[in-house]
């Protein structure tokens, strides 16, 4: 395309040069028609104006082409007039100098040399092209003509000045506006405006012809040209007001041509005067009308443009707010359509023909077209000629930057032409959000040039910001979808049943396992699917007194309202073959809309293992209790023999008492009371024994450890007597209750006390003292300590004494302390042993007040 574009540009320049050549030649001949020999200068001389137009339109580096192109036309036209070659050449130089003065002056002074839409631009044009250029060039021209043709210098100078000034004034704006508007083709004026322009042109022509080419009447010259111009002036004002400087210029040209034609042909209001005398006032008159008229047109145009700008600004704001509103809540996957719509609206608003949205690809290396819009007409035209930009184009050249781009990048004006592409005008804005280059917005006008004002650039930055944040969000959405896809694949592969709840407790997603759940494992939520309200169902079941549903409901509601960080529940399910166990877990869903994730995991295997272990532990504990009782046999015999002896002796006494003649009923009562007391005592011993040996299911209940210790002390009291050990209880009277299994904890206390007594027997200390203490080390725990006056623990055995089969006794199995430890741990407590500073050992265990129930 680059080479073709360059060729096309050269062709266009060559065509323009040819146009200048032809125009110059035709203009020169037209000028000759308005020449009145013996005067060499013409009344109007279009060639200079044509050359000025060409120089204004062309870039200065091409000026020489047009100057050269004019030379043959000049020679052809003027040598034919029979003038000497030297004069012809000098006149070419003066004509060129006039055009150069005008073009240079306008270019130097005007901010937009090709436009006549502000007062400043029109004034600059009038000063540079209408006054200064003819003024200066006319000196040389007049000198040459005066020298060669022997004509009066000032007369020539004056004729040429006014004729050229008039020509510049009337022709250049019309031609320049026509040329620049022509390049803006094919946007024609609206029909109404076209009709208005046609009417105006026709009426002006009719009026002009009627006034200026009618028969000359000497009487009409009162107030030299007042009447005829009074007829034409409204039309000229109409043109200026409604069609701006271009209209004013065209109307002026028409009026000038008609009036000059009339004057030079002896018609119209000046027809009665000699030509040389009539033309000059006409020229001056036309110029003096034209200048204010042009200024008026420019002022009006300026005002209109300001209004337009204001309106456009408002419309742009409207567009911007609509654009931002339509993207703000748009999900990533719906953005393609929105991009297309907004590229079109943007293109139409800016009156450009191509808008492209580029995005960096996944790796951020290539710019790819994310969306595109082209003016349908332009697209068709290019498609027909095969020149339309397509997605295969070297877009990197077009936007002039490529990754890795370091934002922020500045917008680039006309990068296409910089890249050597044949794009008349384009503009690129980088898109970046959060310091990351996301892509670019490319605006192009392939058919005509346009400027990109700073104000427009500022606006486009705003548009670019919205597009950039939309692209960023789409990118984030895509990333999220990818990661969500991965997450749902992970969820699907889980054996646990997983359901996701929204804030209201509705199920919004479930995994495969949830759907595939075997029907026989019916729990309260087994048949709920997506859309069902989990919380409502739980509430319904809870009101129907399904116990698990009540617990689960409380847990799920707490997690949903944020008052609990998580919730866990283990439950058994009835099954024809065997119980199955499940762990339910509820955790909050980590997103701002809230919600929770519920999972049910089959933990039957673990639970069975736990139950088996617990059963073994219980069996072992029971076994060791029986062993302990065996050890206590002698003591127990003593314990039973005491009440039995009491009963026997009292009963014998009673029996003998009955033989006494005087019956003392009170004494008999007292004896019977003692008998009953002893029988109860014996019964208590048996009961304690049975309780202790019992193999009932463990049950957790509130326990008074002090009472428990007192009971165990009774159990061992005979043993203590036999062993000659003094048992002291130092019990905290304010000891709170603990939760636990009475039989198991009795076993622990008994074990520790028996161990202690045995140790005391081994010790050398004469005191034979055993102390059992209870206290609360803090508000959440109770402690039981058993202190003996034995030999204490060997340092190396402290770690091992709670291990199974570790024993220091000759006859011990080494199970007692290990069982004690497993019982205390099952109660959520700890057990330990230390040596007492004063001699002996201290065994203690600590139980939590809010203890786990005994397993």
């Amino acid at each position, binding site marked *: 395309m680059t080479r073709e574009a360059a060729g096309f540009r050269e062709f266009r320049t060559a065509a323009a040069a040819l146009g200048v050549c032809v125009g110059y030649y035709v203009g020169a001949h037209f000028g000759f028609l308005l020449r009145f020999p013996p005067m060499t200068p013409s009344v109007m001389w279009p060639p200079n104006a044509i050359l000025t137009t060409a120089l204004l339109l062309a870039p200065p580096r091409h000026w020489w082409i047009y100057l050269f192109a004019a030379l043959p036309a000049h020679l052809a036209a003027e040598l034919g007039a029979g003038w000497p070659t030297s004069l012809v050449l000098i006149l070419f130089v003066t004509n060129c100098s006039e055009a150069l003065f005008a073009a240079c002056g306008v270019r130097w002074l005007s901010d937009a040399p090709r436009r006549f839409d502000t007062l400043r631009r029109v004034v600059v044009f009038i000063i540079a092209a209408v006054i200064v250029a003819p003024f200066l060039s006319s000196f040389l021209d007049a000198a040459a003509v005066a020298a060669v043709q022997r004509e009066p210098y000032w007369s020539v100078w004056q004729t040429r000045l006014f004729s050229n000034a008039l020509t510049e004034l009337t022709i250049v704006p019309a031609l320049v506006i026509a040329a620049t508007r022509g390049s803006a083709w094919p946007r024609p004026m609206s029909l109404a405006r076209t009709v208005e322009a046609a009417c105006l042109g026709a009426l002006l022509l009719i009026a002009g012809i009627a006034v200026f080419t009618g028969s000359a009447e000497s009487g009409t010259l009162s107030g030299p040209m007042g009447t005829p111009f009074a007829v034409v002036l409204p039309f000229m004002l109409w043109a200026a007001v409604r069609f701006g400087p271009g209209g004013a210029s065209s109307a002026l040209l028409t009026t000038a041509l008609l009036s000059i034609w009339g004057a030079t042909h002896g018609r119209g209001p000046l027809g009665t005067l000699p030509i040389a005398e009539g033309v000059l006032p006409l020229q001056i008159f036309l110029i003096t009308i034209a200048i204010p008229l042009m200024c008026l047109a420019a002022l009006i145009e300026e005002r209109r443009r300001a209004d337009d700008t204001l309106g456009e600004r408002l419309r742009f704001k409207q567009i911007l707010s609509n654009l931002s509103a339509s993207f703000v809540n748009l999900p990533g996957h719906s953005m393609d359509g929105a991009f297309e719509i907004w590229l079109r609206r943007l293109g139409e608003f800016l009156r450009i023909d191509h808008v492209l949205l580029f995005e960096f690809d996944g790796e951020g290396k290539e710019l790819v077209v994310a969306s595109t819009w082209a003016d349908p007409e332009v697209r068709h035209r290019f498609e027909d000629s095969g020149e339309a930009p397509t997605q295969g184009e070297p877009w990197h050249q077009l936007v002039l930057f490529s990754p890795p781009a370091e934002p922020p990048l500045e917008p680039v004006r006309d990068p296409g032409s910089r890249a050597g592409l044949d794009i008349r005008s384009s503009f690129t804005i980088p898109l970046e959000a959060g310091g990351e280059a996301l892509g670019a917005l490319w605006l192009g006008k392939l058919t005509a040039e346009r400027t990109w004002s700073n104000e427009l650039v500022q606006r486009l930055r705003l548009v670019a910001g919205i597009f950039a944040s939309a692209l960023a969000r789409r990118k984030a959405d895509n990333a999220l979808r990818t990661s969500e896809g991965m997450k749902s694949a992970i969820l699907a592969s889980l054996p646990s049943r997983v359901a996701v709840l929204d804030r209201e407790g509705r199920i919004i997603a479930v995994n495969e396992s949830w759907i595939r759940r075997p029907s026989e494992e019916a729990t309260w939520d087994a048949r709920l699917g997506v859309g069902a309200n989990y919380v409502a169902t739980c509430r319904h079941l809870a009101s129907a007194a399904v116990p698990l549903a009540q617990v689960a409901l409380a847990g799920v509601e707490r997690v949903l309202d944020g008052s609990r960080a998580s919730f866990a529940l283990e439950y058994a399910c009835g099954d024809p073959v065997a119980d199955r166990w499940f762990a339910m877990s509820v955790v909050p869903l980590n997103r701002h809309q809230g919600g929770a994730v519920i999972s049910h995991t089959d933990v039957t295997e673990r639970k069975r293992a736990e139950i088996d272990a617990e059963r073994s532990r219980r069996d072992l504990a029971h076994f060791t209790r029986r062993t302990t009782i065996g050890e206590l046999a002698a003591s127990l015999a003593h314990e039973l023999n*005491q*009440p*039995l*002896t009491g009963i*026997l*002796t*009292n009963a*014998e006494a009673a029996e003998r008492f009955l033989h006494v003649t005087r019956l003392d009923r009170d004494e008999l009562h007292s004896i019977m009371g003692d008998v009953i*007391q002893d029988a109860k005592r014996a019964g208590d011993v048996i009961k304690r024994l049975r309780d202790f040996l019992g193999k009932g299911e463990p049950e957790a209940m509130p326990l008074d450890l002090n009472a428990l210790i007192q009971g165990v002390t009774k159990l061992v009291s005979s043993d203590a007597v036999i062993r000659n050990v003094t048992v002291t209880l130092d019990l905290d009277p304010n000891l709170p209750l603990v939760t636990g299994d009475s039989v198991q904890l009795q076993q622990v206390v008994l074990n520790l006390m028996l161990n202690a007594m045995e140790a005391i027997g081994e010790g050398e200390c004469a005191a034979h003292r055993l102390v059992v203490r209870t206290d609360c080390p803090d508000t959440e725990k109770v402690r039981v300590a058993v202190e003996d006056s034995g030999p204490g623990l060997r340092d190396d055995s402290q770690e091992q004494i709670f291990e199974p089969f570790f024993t220091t006794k000759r006859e011990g199995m080494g199970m007692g302390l290990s069982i004690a430890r497993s019982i205390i741990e099952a109660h959520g407590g700890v057990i330990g042993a230390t040596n007492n500073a004063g001699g002996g050992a201290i065994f203690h265990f600590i139980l939590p007040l809010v203890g786990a129930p005994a397993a």
Partner: protein
Amino acid sequence: MTESQPTVFVVDDDLSVRRGLERLLRLAGYRVETFTSAREFLARVAPDGPSCLVLDVRMPEQSGFDLHAALAARGRPLPVIFITGHGDIPMAVRAMKAGAVDFLTKPFDVEALFHAVRQALARAP
């Protein structure tokens, strides 16, 4: 109570055993004094006239054997009948060797006790 009535001292830490024995022996016509521990007995008793001691072996602090030995050490031997809730042969042998009149295992036959008491009082000075 007359001077001629022999006295039976009972030392046992168990209240109901003490009370039963007291009633029984009193009905049999003895003067009975009971003590809960060896120490109490040693502190209060200065036996005067015929008397014997029914003594529990297993008691907190000082056992029956200890008391027996203490009395012997004071040179005031008293005929002693040991009673015990948990007796075995070595213990019985030990008691007899120390000079006990009898060694009865709880719960004992009342007639056996009376027999032992009579024997003891017969031995008493």
